[in-house]
């Protein structure tokens, strides 16, 4: 009997920690800033447990029956916490934090009640020192087991929603077990048994239906364009919204913030396109968010824009979700725009089309796979797709934080015979950002802009092309496929920045 109760301490403790971890993980996942989320969730949870322990003094009779009821409540509330919070976040974005802390508080109070009650049940047969020693030992062991299993097995295999439901089921099973262990003193508790079996059924159904629930939530999300979270075969796409600020993260790297993306995209497109009145055909590589296309379409002479982005999930998202369509001015739905989901390298190899302006807007060269998209071989391929007077612009990471990386891109473009014009602009959410113009002839910056801009003016344009002393050119190797010099520079330089 006592061993059985101690084992239930182990289970109860693991469930208790699991709910805490689930709430912490869910909030950092959805809101970001994991340090704040985990600190506040753990803090409120422990505080609530304290309240629960204090409240336990008011439970005076029918300890076992109360314990069973508490287990059932913890099981249902805790079990559905992840699903419920996710649901609230998706359907009503604003009260999410309120719901989160209410849930954390409620579960915390109930979990805080559990251990004092068990200790009191055990006190009947054991001395005080044995009760404290044994109960707390199993309490901490249960916590250890979950803290190891949670990141290694549960989240990767089951996900947060189903992990939560699994622990809810465990709580209910403990309650059923208690009902069986104490079947003699509880022989008149038919109602309690009914509650337990209903809880068991509800959680089991929840567990079985969890997969459908997740896709339902995402489908709703899609129409409501509030946030988005999807792991496509290529990357993890997350869109966050905070007041009027929409942010796109790919593999946890910020791609834009709607508050200052116009600075980035104007700087990417206009210095080149304002000097190409004869440009008709434009190619955009990467840039599935359609924001560069939005800037390009401001020029009435442009007849066609071909957008090649690897990930259909990206281009589909940015051509269907209302808030994102608003942001890119429905650029991806324009009849002038052709969206292709293909590997840019393969597409350039397989095609003969030439363009008057090419935007190369790939993620930063943080691994060998992306490093290929900044190689001499790639630029040689790119050059074949430039018409006689064409220009290409390449997003080239930060000349301030990754100085040698930036000048490595310049050196690589020059190595294939292109004339380069490096420049930079300040984008607050990124910092000082760099671009390189490449063409067959020398480039002259535009005297002014015929299209509407928020950032660029004729007067400030010359400053884009001036590099301060701390960003001035440094020697860098050419980035070849067989040396991947850029990835090595980039890794070293950004590691220093993060420190």
């Amino acid at each position, binding site marked *: 009997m006592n061993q059985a109760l101690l084992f239930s301490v182990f289970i109860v403790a693991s469930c208790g920690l699991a709910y805490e971890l689930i709430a912490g993980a869910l909030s950092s996942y959805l809101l970001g800033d994991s340090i704040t989320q985990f600190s506040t969730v753990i803090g409120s949870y422990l505080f609530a447990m304290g309240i629960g322990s204090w409240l336990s003094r008011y439970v005076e009779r029918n300890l076992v029956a109360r314990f069973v009821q508490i287990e059932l409540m913890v099981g249902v509330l805790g079990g559905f916490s992840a699903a419920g919070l996710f649901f609230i976040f998706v359907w009503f974005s604003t009260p999410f934090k309120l719901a989160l802390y209410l849930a954390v508080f409620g579960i915390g109070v109930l979990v805080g009640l559990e251990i004092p009650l068990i200790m009191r049940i055990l006190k009947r047969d054991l001395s005080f020192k044995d009760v404290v020693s044994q109960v707390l030992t199993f309490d901490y062991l249960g916590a250890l087991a979950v803290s*190891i*299993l949670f990141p*290694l*097995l549960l989240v*990767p*295999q089951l996900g947060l929603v189903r992990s939560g439901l699994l622990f809810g089921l465990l709580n209910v099973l403990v309650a059923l077990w208690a009902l069986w262990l104490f079947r003699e003193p509880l022989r008149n508790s038919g109602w309690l048994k009914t509650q337990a079996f209903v809880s068991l059924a509800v959680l089991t159904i929840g567990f079985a239906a969890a997969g459908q629930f997740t896709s339902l939530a995402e489908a709703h999300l899609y129409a409501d364009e509030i946030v988005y979270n999807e792991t496509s075969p*290529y990357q993890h796409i997350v869109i966050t919204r905070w007041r009027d600020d929409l942010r796109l993260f790919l593999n946890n790297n910020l791609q834009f913030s709607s508050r200052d993306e116009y600075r980035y995209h104007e700087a990417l497109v206009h210095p080149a396109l304002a000097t190409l009145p004869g440009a008709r055909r434009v190619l955009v590589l990467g840039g599935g968010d359609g924001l560069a296309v939005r800037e390009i379409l401001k020029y009435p002479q442009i007849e066609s824009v071909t957008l090649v982005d*690897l990930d259909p999930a990206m281009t589909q998202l940015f051509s269907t979700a209302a808030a994102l369509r608003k942001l890119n001015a429905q650029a991806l739905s324009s009849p002038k725009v052709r969206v292709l989901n293909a*590997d*840019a*390298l*393969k597409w350039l*190899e397989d095609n003969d089309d030439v363009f008057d302006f090419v935007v190369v807007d790939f993620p930063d060269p943080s*691994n*060998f*796979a*992306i490093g*290929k*998209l900044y*190689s*001499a*071989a*790639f630029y*040689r*391929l790119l050059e074949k797709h430039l018409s006689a007077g064409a220009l290409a612009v390449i997003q080239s990471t930060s000349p301030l934080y990754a100085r040698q990386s930036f000048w490595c891109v310049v050196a690589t473009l020059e190595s294939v015979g292109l004339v380069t014009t490096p420049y930079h602009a300040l984008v607050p959410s990124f910092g000082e950002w760099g671009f390189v113009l490449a063409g067959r002839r020398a480039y002259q910056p535009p005297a002014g802009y015929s299209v509407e801009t928020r950032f660029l003016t004729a007067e400030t344009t010359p400053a884009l092309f001036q590099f301060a002393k701390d960003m001035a050119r440094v020697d860098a190797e050419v980035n*070849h*496929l*067989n*040396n*991947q010099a850029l990835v090595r520079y980039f890794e070293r330089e950004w590691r220093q920045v993060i420190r």
Partner: protein
Amino acid sequence: MERRDFLSALAAAGLASLPGCGAPAQAALPPGALLGTAIDPAHRLRERNLPPPSATREVPVLIVGAGIGGLSAGWKLAKSGFNDFLMVELEAEAGGNSRSGRNEVSAFPLAAHYLPLPTREATAVRELLAELGVLHGDPRAARPRYDERYLCATPQERLYRNGWWQEGILPHNGVSAAELEQYRRFYALIDAFKQRRDGQRRAFALPMALSSRAPDLLALDRLSMRDWLLAQGLDSPQLHWYVDYACRDDYGTNISEVSAWAGIHYFACRSGEAQDAASDTVLTTPGGNGWLTEGLAQSIKARAGDRLLTGSLVFRVAEEGGRTNVDLWQPEQQRTVRLSAGQLIWAAPLFLVPHVFAGQDTLKLAARSFSYAPWLVANLTLSRFPTDRAGASMAWDNVLYDSPGLGYVVSTHQQMRMRPGTTVFTYYRALSGMSPQQGRAILQETTRKAWADQILTELERPHPDIRQVTTRLDVFRNAHAMARPLPGLIWGQQRALFAADRPRLRFAHADVSGFSLFEEAQYRGVLAAERTLHRLGKSFVTSLS
């Protein structure tokens, strides 16, 4: 299992499959085929029950064998404007140890998978690479430019050791200072060999025929690589593993068996440089060295038309009446044809000589002094890249420390693609550490399923889900994959017999050099072609100086 291997396996399995808790359920073995060099026709050689010739055909120059030696002979003949030759090949495809396969995912090698940057003395290799458009500018430049698509992309190689992938193959994590000092001394010795010139000749040249004949160097051919290392005071286990790996990889033979001259040659001969790559970069393609086979074959076809007869077994060679009669069994037509050759270039392995040649007792005896390493190559078609242990990221050549295999190369590594999708891993294993006869018996007896299981078990260490992602596993056996450069072979009397010029017969196989390298096979082929042209009084420009 190493301790760190164990711990990381434990972590990955999420404590779910503790060793000792019963065998984990294993995915069924992927389908595949057991392929290999045609064993049946070769066995018919021994049975000697093939029919007599039903027709005779005169051939001014006959080349037997269309591996790199034979193709290179044909290439040189055709380039010199001489088209009256015929190449016959036992296998269904030309290429020998430079053959490749292809499926819906990628091309992949069936044997050799790379060519080091050619040395300055490898003039014929440079000439071929220039013709194929891979070497740009002056083929004789000290540091030519190469087509970037052929230069192996970074990262080139990595090693899995103690549960961790490191960059490069020479072990460096947790290696003691004393062992690192031995590494430095080893490389200093190799460097001295690299620098050494005796007159015009490098100590260890590639092709090897151009090497110095200084007695102290030739004496290295009389001891094993292991004994040479120990004599230099080099006993570091890590260094011995590394050198042993190199010997198994290039010669299919252990460090304790391979000649020190050959072992040092591997390290000291590679002096090629490039304008656009580090000197240790290699040239490779998805199909390994298949592009060289295809390049040679196409070059011949463009100049001389179709000169290749495949699937044909030469079973008798006899000098009769001033010509060389070569009897050829064609299993498809079920007939024997006699080819009456004015000149014969034998570009097939030398172990066939005793079974085929009439008379020529000295040559037959000499051929018996060659021994051959059995090999196994497996191609694993994968639905996606497997999960990977921590450390250096996926390279082209991926080696497992302390493993019977030689690791695997990734066929799609050179693809200009951003996202790795499906791929083919080519796994290599030399059946070394036993007699070649034992190795061949194992090759003969082991089923494909048994090989597949062994290989997947080995690769499971760094890639826990390799079984789940392998959709096909083809095993390619080669019972006589390459000559083994044992002490005494390279600078002994017997090999010299095959290198000599004869009035109507020349040998043009890598075996004539004593080891199977593309550069050697090509040199022997071109040399045989040039000697033949000279004998026939045809003019040509030499490719060999």
